[in-house]
């Protein structure tokens, strides 16, 4: 097939325009913060970012993913200016290794775990379904990588079901994938973050059992500022904003506890 010349020229021009298109021009006062955020905190972070951008005029670029992956990327020069981790271990290590700003660590949220199914009515408000075994697969986040996965395994141990259910486990690489396995129906059940299924203070769809906090170690999620962002006003203000009552209220709305 032959491409007519004027078509190919138009295509070329379009390509050139796309390549040359300038990004948003930075204004004198508004800055930009580049933040790595644990996958479980995606929904509240989106709301908080919108509020923050409205209130301060700064803009925030967020990447959502597994805390362990972010840690490895940050250690290898990723351009993040702060990390909102899913645990305390990674921020502590970053600080100890001189990548995190000393004294900038704080707990921004305490996570809750929920046994959840996309099917309404499948999960009663208790762990009985786990005992009957009336489900195909149980999706958990990889306990080696994700604190919610670790908490899920601790819960199974506390219920004395760990050995029995081990063959039914499928593992998500992070809590977002764990949720997605359940949400698409490929796994009947999963231990996910309450924030993933909570809307306006209740479980928005499917059915779930909020795991009592005494069945697993608390999921304390720490944030740490990274050296790259220490002189960036947008980062400094965002870190402060996260600790404000306004942001903390949003965080609680999504089923987290705050300090």
């Amino acid at each position, binding site marked *: 097939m032959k491409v007519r010349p004027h078509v190919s020229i138009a295509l070329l021009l379009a390509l050139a325009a796309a390549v040359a298109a300038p990004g948003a021009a930075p204004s004198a006062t508004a800055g930009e913060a580049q933040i790595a955020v644990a996958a479980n905190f995606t929904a509240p972070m989106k709301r908080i970012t919108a509020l923050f951008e409205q209130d301060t005029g700064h803009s925030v670029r967020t990447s959502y993913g597994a805390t362990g992956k972010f840690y*490895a990327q940050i250690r290898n020069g990723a351009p993040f200016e702060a990390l909102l981790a899913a645990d305390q271990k990674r921020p502590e290590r970053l600080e100890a290794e001189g990548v995190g700003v000393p004294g900038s660590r704080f707990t921004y949220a305490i996570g809750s775990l929920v046994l959840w199914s996309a099917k309404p009515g499948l999960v009663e408000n208790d762990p009985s379904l786990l005992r009957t075994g009336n489900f195909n697969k149980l999706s958990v986040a990889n306990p080696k990588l994700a604190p919610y996965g670790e908490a899920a395994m601790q819960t199974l141990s506390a219920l004395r079901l760990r050995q029995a259910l081990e063959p039914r*486990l499928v593992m998500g690489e992070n809590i977002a994938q764990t949720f997605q*396995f359940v949400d*698409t129906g490929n*796994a009947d059940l999963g231990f996910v973050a309450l924030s993933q299924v909570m809307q306006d203070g209740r479980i928005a769809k499917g059915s779930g059992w909020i795991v009592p906090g005494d069945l697993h170690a608390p999921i304390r999620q720490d944030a740490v500022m990274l050296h790259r962002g220490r002189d960036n006003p947008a980062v400094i203000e965002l870190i402060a904003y996260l600790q404000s009552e306004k942001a903390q209220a949003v965080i609680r709305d999504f089923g987290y506890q705050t300090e």
Partner: protein
Amino acid sequence: MFLSDADLEAIALTLRLATITTLILFVVGTPIAWWLSRTRSRWKGPVGAVVALPLVLPPSVLGFYLLVTMGPNGPVGWLTQTLGIGLLPFSFWGLVIGSVFYSLPFMVQPVQNAFEAMGERPLEVAATLRASPLDRFFTVALPLAAPGFVTAGILTFAHTVGEFGVVLMIGGNIPGETRVASVQIYDYVEALEYGNAHRLAAVLLVFSFLVLLALYSWRPHPRKV
């Protein structure tokens, strides 16, 4: 021991996945390659494009479609459940199906090229000797295309060993079932166990190099017909 038991299990699983995928693709890919090399149908273009899609599509797209179609609300998931097989995601055979799609062009294209390169002449000669079409295919076309099959087999095998994104999306990371070597390495890196990651990564690196070295050093003897 240089590698842990879990690593050896992951390697064994990877080799099993690659072997089965390659064998299936020999069977599935050969008729497609033959048809593509001989047809004058207007469907040749579209079919060729579909076969080549996995070369271009990100594994995340393929993994996403597989997860949704093989899930309980997808057509394939409905079929497998109706047949009593259950659901394919998170199972070894689910990975096999994903790999068959993912590696399809690596089988079809070299074989198709080999079929096209032999031309019509040998088959016509065989026909004048009263060889039936099936006979011509098995005793003339296949042996002539043998170098193409070797290339296709090696590439398909190696490409399946190197598969990662699709497995990550539909595998569920189950030891001995879906946790292949590439995923095992990813886990090590994420868990900050760089020593373990290095060891297994080195094994894959050496393996891949040797396979490609064999492929590029190997020269078929030119055959005259």
